[in-house]
Every structure is written in C-alpha cells, then in structure tokens.
C-alpha cells in the first residue's frame, strides 16, 4: 500500500513539473510575441530606390509591392523633410513628384542618428512596409546607410 502511494506521489510530482514547464513556456512565448522585433534583426526582402518604388506602382506591378507589405524593405532616397512629434521622428523621402513621398516613421532608438541628417542627404532606410495612401508608408524604420 505504501509502495502504491509512493508511486502516486511520484506521478503527481512529474505531472506538476510538466504542467509548470508548460505554463512557463506559454508565458515566455506570450512575452516574446508581445515584443515588437527590432528592424535591424528582420530580414530585408527588397532593396530599391524611391523612384523605383513609385515606378513599380505606376506600371501596376504594385501587386509585387503589395507582396512586401508587413515585410522589411530598404529604400534609397533623398531626405525632403524631417519631423519630430511625441519623441518620434519621421523622415520624408522625395518620391516621384511633389505629391508622392515615402514616409518613414523611425524606431525610437534612431533619434541620435537622425540628428546627423540634413535635408538633401541621400540615405537608405530600412523599415516595415505598411502600404500606400498618397505616399508609401514605412514604420519602425532604421537608417541603413
């Protein structure tokens, strides 16, 4: 009888350990999923110039660009405007004409790098393509070069 009880306790301990491990793994997985990835660590899916980006839209191969939505792309362009609001910088790159630009909302850790920039500088930004309104919109951008 004593032996049976001992086996039951043993089982209980194993089940408890397994349960606890599952809970810990779930919590870790949940926390990992909660954290937004740093754009530096995300794979670049396409590199192009600002002109190529809008040319792609015009030739209605925008389907190709839509494939890159929610993916990291690199865009080379000329700084047209730098805005700062709520401790967040946004760089506007020149597009194909006055009405279409590339809006790059920067990652907060880029603030120091942005201070070195000036209007007219040619840069490469890497960011997550979110889509197009009048302008192309990239979030979580970093200065790649």
């Amino acid at each position, binding site marked *: 009888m004593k032996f049976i009880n001992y086996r039951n306790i043993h089982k209980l301990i194993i089940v408890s350990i397994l349960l606890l491990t599952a809970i810990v793994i779930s919590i870790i997985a*949940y926390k990992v*999923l*909660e*954290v*937004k990835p740093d754009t530096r660590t995300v794979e670049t899916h396409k590199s192009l110039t600002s002109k190529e980006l809008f040319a792609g839209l015009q030739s209605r191969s925008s389907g190709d660009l839509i494939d890159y*939505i*929610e993916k990291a792309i690199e865009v080379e362009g000329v700084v047209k405007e730098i*805005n700062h*609001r*709520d401790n*967040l910088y*946004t760089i*506007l790159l020149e597009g194909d004409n*006055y*009405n279409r*630009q590339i*809006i790059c*909302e920067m990652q907060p850790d880029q603030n120091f790098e942005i201070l070195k920039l000036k209007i007219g500088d040619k840069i490469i930004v890497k960011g997550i393509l*979110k*889509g*197009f*309104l*009048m*302008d192309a*919109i990239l*979030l979580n951008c970093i200065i790649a070069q």
Partner: protein
Amino acid sequence: MNKKLLFLSSFLFLLISMNCNSQKSNQYIARQGEMSFFSYTSAENIKANNDQVLSLIDFSTGEIAVSILMRAFKFEKSLMEEHFNESYIESDLFPKASFEGVIQNLDPTHIGTQTRIVKGDFILKGIKKTLEFKIDINKIGDVLSVKGEVEILVKDFNIKIPPLLSPNIAKSIQVTFNFDYSEYEN
C-alpha cells in the same frame, strides 16, 4: 532699363497669378494626421495610434476627406496588432478606411477656432455608414488644424470577435483625431 521693367512686370504678373491660384484652390493637406482609438472594458483597455493618416480639406467648400491605412495603427502589444489586422479588420482585404464629408456652416473667413458639425460617409471593411460628429477647426493664417472625436459601433462594421475575447473588446470604440494641415499645391 527696358529689360529691368520687363523683368519686374513679368515677376509681378507671376506673383499675382500665383496669388489668384492659391485663393481659388484653398485646399489643404495633412499627410501625417494623428488618429487614436480606445476600447475600454473592465477586462482590458486597448489603445492604438496611427500617426500617418492622410486628409484633404477644401476650405472654401468645407469638403473633407480622410484616408486611413489600417496596418499603420500601432498597439502596445504586437499580439493585439496581429489580431486587429488579421481577425477583426482583415487588413489584407480591406487595407484602408475612409471618410468623405462636408463641414456644415463652415465660415472660411473666420480667424481662430470654430466648432462645427461634419456629416459624411465612413467606410470600414467595405461597409458604409453615415456619421455626424463635432469637430474643432482652428485656422490662423495658413495654419489649419482640425480635431475631434467620434464613436464607432463594432456591430456596424461586421467585426467578428470570438466569444472568448468579447469581454475584452468594447462594443463602442472611441476614435479621436488631430490633423495639422498645410497648403496643398496640386
């Protein structure tokens, strides 16, 4: 001397025609309008911001248009963002929401703030609803801003929330916005 006169008269003509054009258009653009929405429940409060909202306004007619890229909403937790885009809004199918309306009784000559009602159609997930809400319009010189808030009912836009998560999401979503415009030269 004649050349100088010719140059001056040409320059003046250019200035006058530019002035006439800008008075005629009276259009303003906000490329980086701010929009936030809030869902308050006893289980959870959810907030999201979008700082890249596009809006155009014709100050002579009071017409206003807003275009919102749904994927540009930023949430505190990335899992919330994923649920929002993939399950509730279906951003792949409906990437944008839009509003087109007219500001009622807008006084284009008023300097300072005027509170007006705007009435128009809001389209989300391909579903059109007429909305009417109050906005504050502030115009001093060429500086124009519009801010306000509106309530959106989840049930109006075919947003399917799983029963398990329904206590976490409010039935009515508060949307606030603040757009700073600059003159639009098209």
